[in-house]
């Protein structure tokens, strides 16, 4: 469990996925990738963990993933094979409403 804040970066313990927190809930949460808790961006993965087949749909570069409640939003900065989750539920892909380019 960890208190997240916007800008926090994490990496997957079981695949190449890296994320940056865009929006964080006020409470401590445990974010997972591939079913395994994510680790600090510079951290080393613990031994003996592996990608869960229930969380293996993969992440895509530049896509945002949100929790059901909408209070956690992650930006994928490096893609991988695992799927992101929080509190045992997978995050869903956020559908972007495009804005016209202004600069």
């Amino acid at each position, binding site marked *: 469990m960890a208190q997240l804040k*916007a*800008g926090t*970066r994490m990496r997957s313990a079981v695949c190449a996925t890296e994320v*940056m927190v*865009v929006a964080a809930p006020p409470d401590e949460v445990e974010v997972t990738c591939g079913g395994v808790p994510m680790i600090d*961006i510079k951290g080393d993965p613990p031994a003996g963990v592996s990608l869960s087949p229930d969380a293996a749909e993969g992440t895509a*570069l*530049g*896509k945002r993933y949100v929790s059901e409640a909408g209070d956690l939003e992650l*930006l994928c*900065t*490096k893609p991988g094979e695992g799927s992101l989750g929080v509190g045992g539920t997978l995050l869903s892909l956020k559908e*972007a*409403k*495009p*804005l*016209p*380019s*202004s*600069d």
Partner: protein
Amino acid sequence: MNLMMLLEMATSGFGDRVAVKSGASSLTYSQLFEAAGTAAGEIASSGCKRMALLDVSSLAVPVGLFASAWAGVPFVPLNYRLTGTELETLVKEIAPSYLVTDADRGESLPKLSGTTVVTRERFLERATTGSTGEPSWPMDPDQIAILLFTSGTTGPPKAAVLRHKHLVSYILGSVEFASAAEDDTALVSVPPYHVAGMAAIASCVYAGRRIVQLPSFSAEAWLELARSERVTNAFVVPTMLARVIDALSGAASADLPHLRALSYGGGKMPQSVIEKAMKLFPDTHFTNAYGLTETSSTISLLGPDEHRAAAESHDPEIRRRLTSVGRPLPSVEVQIRDEAGKSLGPGERGEIFVRGEQVSGEYLGRRSTVDAEGWFPTRDSGSMDSEGYIFIEGRADDIIVRGGENMSPGEIEDVLLEHEAVADAAVVGIPDEQWGEAVAAAVVAKPGRSVSEEEIRRWVKDRLRSSRTPQRIDFREELPYNELGKLLRRKLRAEMLGEGT
């Protein structure tokens, strides 16, 4: 957070695409990434605490911006139109700096201690041929990314502070990663020292839109480049659009079939100019963007559909939206407040306040202007209608207070500009013994036309409350503008009062 994260994502997403083109030279995203890393090493080993750029647009602008982010030093684009003394003051303020400039300017710069001067050619040569270190940059979101000296229309220049968190939040809040089509090309004609020039680089890199630079604006060069490079997107300030329209004189259409989107901002767009533009560019989507240096560029947008709906409407309330700056971005909140700080309702005039992750509201060496709840006073006055469309009336400092009554110069200027013999007009407040301030108008007649003071007064009196009628009217050959078409109201006022400048 660091701007480099945006470039790193672009490099791994579409590294072989062209990121930026200047004349015959170009860089792909991968090459831009490598060059930024190499130049970051040069900056770091110089021991300088800032990177300054005193130059027109060139490949050195994106390389310098990202190299600074990589090295963890602020990037400071300087206005190359400043005089020697003005420039010297700024360069001293940001020392020790690694200053990139063109060869001629480099030679004419006085020797300043703590300033390492490097020519653009040398900077780019080293950046593109040297070896790049391991990708690694500071991730502290509070690090300063850019220092931008504001144009100084209201006082001596002060450096607005834009931190990595402001700029990255702005991009994440307004641009979708890799959203540009492969043939998308943006024409960047604003100078690097304008916030729109900086925002354009970050937005285009994250969207994957190729940038084509126009180092020195002329309407003819803009049109030629837009055609030859099959430009799909462009941003212009109102003066640029007015000049482009003039250059197309008499043509039925602009003949830019590839130009899908034209956005404009950075000053008040006269309704007549945008109406003409929409006729000349019938297939182009227009977007009006309102923002400030202190807010990391755009905070509100009037999109293409809203332009069309307004232009086609017979309802004056909806048609009027063509002169609005649209509605706030989803990631930004806007409030209109009165002088006591109370939030105002639809249609009521006051000062525009803005809140959001992209809002800095901070100047180097000064206390933040943002309040405890995160609201930044823009010093722009305006109103918001019942559907959230924002109307800007001008700078709050320019409001004329006559006998306790507040009036905005913009309201009177709009009426003056509707007169068929008037080419340009500006209104300022001048000291008045009886009223505190009096309304003074400077009017430029159209070539070969003349109009009397009595006619001007009657014209205004027929259309606005009598307190708005100019007490003094000066006829002039032209009004003072800065190089980006911003009216220099303080200068005009000083000239009208015979104070010189």
